[in-house]
């Protein structure tokens, strides 16, 4: 049938439209609350009543902020100005956030909230807030992190035994080895090193995600810290005949108060990535630039680069660029995710410029001083 012959949808009366909206509101699986322009609750669906533990009669007609209590991860009531519904009116735009709602029985539940102002000809008539209980999601996340943490610890024990015995074999404690045996052992050593790195990465990620990573700030000179890493990094570079350089640009001190171990992990990850994704005989340069309130580190490579269409996913978990997967089969796609997470814990920033076939420049900055970190929260509902 031609499009013009299609029967037009029957026009709904105002009552029919009202019934349709009512049915839609009631049947939404997530909690939904609407308010008028005075912030008074006008409608509550059954899911919202279930999540909050209030009946419709207890909510309708009451002032939204008085009845729907929002608290932070530290049990502090959220400022009214910071509540998503207020922000929606402040900005005139939909707002999505995660926080905690206090049920009628006093229990606090993590919720994911989406709230939009209701507008008629540009005039705000109220708001509609849709929210869902994310307790189960958070519990699954926590259990997953715990499992990875436990599994990683358990994997480390047999790995230590493998490492010890392979070193004893290569060092000749169990007699001389022939060329084929040495070659096999070197493969075992390489594989156990890779597994060890993977376990460390997984452990670090679970610590970041659970907010339990320990930070020990000390005054360090960034150029000296990177110099300490150079022998290990040069070994990696030499294996691929890559020219690895470290340079200090600009005047001023590179001293910052930060966690040296975490910074070493960040630099090692970025430089080993650069070496890994640069063809033999290429170049990798580390440049340190002191600025007034921060120190910047740039890691430049002449590698394969990151395709434009993949660049927004670079810091995502398990991301591996298509052009790399074809060339380099090893790699977990966790390195840059970890680096971003580690930098976040140190209040650092990271960004990059890359062109496929022309190499990549990663930049990160670290502040001169590390603000006092809050102790890890027992709850977690950050967006």
């Amino acid at each position, binding site marked *: 049938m031609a499009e013009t012959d299609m029967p037009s949808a029957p026009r709904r009366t105002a009552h029919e439209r009202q019934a349709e909206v009512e049915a839609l509101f009631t049947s939404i699986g997530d909690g939904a609350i609407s308010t008028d*322009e*005075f*912030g008074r609750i006008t409608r509550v669906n059954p899911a919202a009543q279930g999540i909050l533990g209030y009946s419709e009669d207890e909510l309708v007609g009451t*002032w*939204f*902020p*008085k009845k729907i209590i929002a608290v932070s991860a530290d049990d502090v009531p959220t400022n*009214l*100005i910071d*509540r998503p*519904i*207020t922000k929606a*009116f*402040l*900005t*005139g*735009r939909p707002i999505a956030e995660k926080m905690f709602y206090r049920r009628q029985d006093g229990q606090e539940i993590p919720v994911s909230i989406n709230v939009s*102002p209701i507008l008629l*000809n*540009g*005039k*705000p008539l109220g708001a509609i807030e849709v929210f869902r209980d994310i307790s189960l999601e958070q519990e699954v996340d926590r259990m997953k992190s715990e499992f990875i943490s436990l599994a990683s610890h358990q994997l480390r024990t047999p790995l230590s035994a493998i490492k010890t015995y392979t070193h004893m074999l290569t060092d000749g404690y169990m007699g001389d080895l022939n060329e084929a045996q040495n070659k096999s052992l070197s493969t075992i050593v390489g594989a156990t090193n890779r597994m060890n790195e993977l376990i460390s990465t997984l452990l670090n990620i679970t610590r970041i995600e659970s907010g339990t990573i320990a930070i020990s700030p000390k005054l360090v000179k960034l150029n000296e810290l990177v110099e300490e890493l150079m022998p290990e990094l040069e070994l990696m570079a030499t294996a691929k005949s890559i020219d690895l350089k470290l340079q200090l640009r600009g005047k001023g001190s590179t001293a910052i108060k930060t966690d040296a171990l975490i910074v070493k992990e960040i630099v090692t990850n970025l430089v080993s990535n650069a070496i890994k994704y640069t063809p033999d005989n290429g170049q990798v340069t580390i440049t340190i630039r002191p600025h007034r309130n921060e120190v910047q580190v740039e890691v430049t490579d002449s590698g394969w680069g990151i395709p434009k269409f993949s660049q927004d996913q670079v810091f995502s978990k398990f991301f591996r660029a298509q052009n790399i997967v074809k060339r380099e089969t090893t790699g977990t796609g966790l390195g840059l995710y970890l680096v971003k997470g580690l930098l976040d814990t140190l209040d650092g920033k990271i960004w990059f410029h890359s062109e496929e076939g022309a190499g990549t420049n990663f930049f990160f900055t670290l502040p001169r001083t590390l603000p006092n970190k809050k102790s890890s929260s027992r709850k977690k509902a950050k967006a």
Partner: protein
Amino acid sequence: MAASQPDSVYDQVVQVTHAYLGPTADRFIARQVEDHLHKSPSELSQADLLSLIDWIKAVVSLLTEDGDIIEEYTNELRKLAARTGGKHG
């Protein structure tokens, strides 16, 4: 102050608001003008006032339950709109 013209429409709105919101008045009104009217505070005109008041009322209604205060505040702003001949929309 975000707008420096003395006695501009913006200054008058901030002055009224200061009595209710205190020192945050300037920032609050500037943000409302920018976000809802999509103009800079110095460009706030008479014709914008009633539309701006609708948004201000919606936000303030989520900051206090006291309907009398909200009415008083928005009436003060409406007086400004009437004085300057503001039109809705």
